[in-house]
């Protein structure tokens, strides 16, 4: 499968991730403008660019005794996580690398979001920021196990942890058809890891913006852009895992990858606007009493089918 390690894939990766992140932000702005009843909502698609320019130009505000080192580490870590995770996400047949344990690579990298959000919350030297950082850890304990089991189910179905072989295993039937529970759990965990929409409690308004409360200027830009990039990359990873990768008629494989990613990403952004924020302790209860048993049963079914 594919041509991992292609030099051009390395060069293409950052612009594609940035484009998807910008697209997600633009789509979110359009939805916001429509919800607010503003006329010609589509024109709001350029809002994120304007906001980015504003954040770049505005002098950053600093809090006394903030731990700058840890704050910056967290702010930079978020987009870095998105880029590192994207290295095992195929665009059509091309990917930066296709290691034998690609799924584990994605999981190990994505977990660094825990560190990023907590570092930002702690480093701000703000009570609300710290509350947001702790909220994300609680949310992490809730989403990470169902997320891992969903990934394990895919690996079990394909009998491989290599992303290329997972795509190949779906040539007959997409995994979403016979692993719908794992797919749903994966999408939910994407919302949780990007603290987006109903699972945005770590940066929720009831804590004045939570972990991101004291971020301003370029720091805020990096943090928000990294969050959109993470959402985009995690949505893009659903395509090789569940939606047959670049498979599809007429269009080339890379185009199908992009189309499927756009649909998943657009749906996630839309869901983020559609549902209210869930408190992380409620989410934790649901995750441990509903999601984990459900995805374990899914894994059992897949395991029996594979045998």
């Amino acid at each position: 499968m594919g041509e991992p390690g292609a030099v051009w894939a390395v060069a293409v990766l950052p612009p594609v991730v940035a484009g998807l992140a910008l697209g997600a932000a633009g789509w979110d702005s359009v939805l916001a403008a429509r919800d607010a009843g503003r006329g010609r909502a589509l024109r709001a698609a350029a809002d994120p660019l304007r906001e980015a320019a504003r954040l770049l130009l505005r002098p950053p505000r600093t809090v006394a005794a903030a731990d700058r080192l840890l704050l910056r580490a967290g702010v930079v870590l978020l987009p870095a996580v998105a880029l590192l995770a994207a290295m095992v996400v195929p665009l059509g047949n091309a990917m930066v690398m296709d290691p034998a344990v690609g799924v584990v690579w994605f999981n190990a990298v994505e977990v660094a979001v825990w560190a990023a959000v907590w570092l930002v919350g702690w480093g701000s030297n703000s009570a609300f920021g710290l509350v947001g950082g702790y909220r994300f850890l609680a949310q992490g304990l809730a989403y990470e196990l169902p997320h891992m089991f969903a990934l394990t189910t895919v690996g079990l179905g394909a009998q491989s942890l290599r992303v290329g072989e997972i795509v190949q295993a779906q040539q007959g039937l997409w995994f979403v058809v016979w692993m719908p529970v794992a797919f749903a759990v994966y999408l939910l965990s994407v919302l949780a890891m990007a603290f987006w929409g109903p699972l945005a409690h770590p940066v929720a308004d009831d804590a004045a913006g939570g972990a991101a409360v004291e971020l301003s200027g370029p720091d805020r830009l990096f943090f928000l852009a990294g969050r959109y990039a993470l959402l985009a990359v995690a949505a893009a990873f659903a395509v090789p895992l569940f939606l047959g990768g670049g498979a599809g008629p007429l269009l080339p494989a890379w185009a199908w990858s992009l189309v499927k990613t756009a649909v998943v990403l657009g749906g996630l952004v839309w869901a983020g606007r559609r549902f209210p924020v869930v408190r992380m302790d409620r989410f934790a209860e649901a995750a441990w009493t509903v999601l984990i048993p459900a995805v374990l049963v899914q894994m059992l079914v897949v395991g029996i089918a594979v045998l």
Partner: protein
Amino acid sequence: MGVVVFWVLAAGAVAGGIAVFAVDSMARATFALLLSFLCVGAELLLIGLPYLGLLVVLMMIMEMLIMAVFMVMYMMNPAGLMPMTMVHNRRGSAAVSAAVFAALAAGALLTPWPERRGVPAHDTTFALGEAVMGPKMAVMMLVGVAILATMITSVVLATGRGRYDRHGDRLDARRPADPGRGAP
């Protein structure tokens, strides 16, 4: 190339370990330790154990973040927001750590390491899985159940608000008596 990367990672791991005791904040100490562990995980990647290496990275990030919560919670100054030091009883601890280091280094240098027999497995991940699910199955089952039992026991002992507190003595309360009462 591999040798250079090995030594850079090894130096990074040791430097991270030293930084734990040099910094004045519990948060920084935690992340210095995490950095040290990440270097060790990368060493495992380097010697051709990708699954174990990534697992170390994955588990250490999660573990150190949870540990940060507890380290900050139990540290000696209020809220952990003031400068602190990880070092107490300087002379004694220096002596103990020097002795332990000398013993470990002597062990590593003096042990007659066996010659390699056979060749490494083609797919180390697969070989690991076979070992865990095959000859080491009984041990893994026992350890797994023991760890799970320990976790459940400690949570049961530690929690001040279990399901009987939330759902009543007969577990029939439709709405749990939680401190933050939102919508049902």
